[in-house]
């Protein structure tokens, strides 16, 4: 599904990703962990097409096609979804208008109001989400948890095939994290080929969304890969201890 080869990325003339490689096959769940500032969020923004990040070398293939020339909306239409760490607040743009426009864009047809309302209500119910939020300005005045639930609602409505979760767990209480993560896992179980890339500092989310691979990112490249136990090891011993052995080698 996603193949990143020798990717190097700059922002403000500073190299963030350096000869980065990653392959994610259909249906796989990958996790990227690493200390602050090593390029985890950069990776998510580059995949999505944020023009502030300059790709200086390498390639990103999605379903065999070169992703780099595509605009942000074209990437989303291919099925890529980035659940953002800090979803932006847009005052005046109603969540409802936004969601319906996004659904119509992704499905390339006007979504009927009745179908839209039904989908929204079901999604909001599944997420124990206050339905009033559908009618408010997009993310404006939402709590941290409400913003993240709104991101997951979008996953349920837009039905992506590759989901990037950029620190979904930040700003979420334990109950909200469980609800969000269970909804994502349920979505994945209903869409077996959907792949997920999780960026996180904490293994708690991985209790609900089972990873196939856990990678440690340092200095813009993956320095160690393992399974769920690697995430537990990181939490217990820290990044330095976990990667020390590899560095000594």
């Amino acid at each position, binding site marked *: 599904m996603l193949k990143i080869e020798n990717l190097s990325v700059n922002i403000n003339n500073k190299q963030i990703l350096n000869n980065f490689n990653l392959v994610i096959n259909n249906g796989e769940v990958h996790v990227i962990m690493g200390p602050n500032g090593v390029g985890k969020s950069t990776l998510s923004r580059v995949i*999505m097409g944020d023009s502030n990040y300059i790709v200086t070398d390498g390639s990103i293939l999605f379903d065999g096609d070169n992703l780099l020339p595509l605009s942000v*909306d074209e*990437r989303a239409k291919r099925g890529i979804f980035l659940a953002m760490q800090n979803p*932006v607040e*847009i005052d005046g743009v109603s969540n409802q*208008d936004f969601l319906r*426009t996004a659904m119509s*864009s992704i499905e390339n047809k006007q979504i009927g109001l009745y179908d839209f309302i039904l989908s929204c209500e079901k999604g909001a119910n599944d997420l124990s989400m206050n339905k009033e939020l559908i009618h408010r300005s997009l993310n404006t005045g939402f709590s941290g948890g409400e913003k993240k639930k709104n991101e997951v609602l979008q996953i349920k409505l837009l039905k992506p095939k590759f989901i990037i979760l950029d620190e979904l767990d930040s700003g979420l209480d334990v109950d909200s994290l469980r609800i969000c993560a269970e909804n994502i896992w349920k979505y994945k179980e209903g869409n077996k080929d959907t792949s997920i890339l999780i960026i996180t500092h904490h293994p708690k989310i991985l209790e609900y969304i089972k990873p196939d691979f856990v990678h440690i990112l340092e200095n813009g490249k993956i320095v160690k890969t393992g399974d769920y136990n690697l995430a537990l090891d990181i939490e217990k011993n820290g990044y330095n201890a976990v990667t020390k052995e590899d560095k000594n080698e």
Partner: protein
Amino acid sequence: MNKISIVKNNVIPFDSSNIIICNNNISILDSGNYVLEYIDCDDVKLNIHVDKNKCINLFEYSYDNDISVNNKYNIDKKASLIINKFYCNKNSNENIDINLNGENVFVKYNFSSISNGIDKYKINIYHNAKKTNSDIFNKTIAKESSSNYFDINSYVENGIIDTYLNQSTKIITLGDSDNRINPNMYTYDNSTTAVHSSVIGSVSEDELFYLMSRGISYDESIRLIVKGTLLSNINIPCEYWQEINDIIDTLGGE
């Protein structure tokens, strides 16, 4: 709803027990919803009087005029005036005075506009009595090569206690345009509460990235943001809803 049409700079008289019209003097006697529409106008001068204890919602609409407006609003004791206003003119040159003449008078001024040419707005709010409130909200979309100048002046003399002044103006630029906001609050009484914000800038890159990351095209994202900015600022009567939406829809992706 009472609709007052201003055609070729003159108020068209009509029978109503709620309004007295004499030349271009309009006295609103009963609480309720009113509309002022400017049609083929270029030089309008109105005196609008809101009677005491009345609550008035006034919607003002001007489209495709090359217009100069010099209106005075006089609001009597314990009355409130909520103005919702939408302009999309060739050019606008407006100079309005809002007089809060009695205790506990409240004015809320919500103005949304699309600027095509040279638009100049001077809004003077005179707090002539204690415990008066003014909320001024301007939101403008500045099209390529347009000019927008806002001078907003709130006045409170010494001894006019417990007043509340709020001014908020935002101009979103679509391309190169010349814009200026001068928010002035001239208060000589220490008990005044004053709040203001002024913003001039293009559509936020973060907002665009977020919308486009959900599959929404650049043009459609701009349209959503512009529409949201303008429409969230004003209450529009049903009769004007479609027309104003159609006007805004022509802006996407310029």
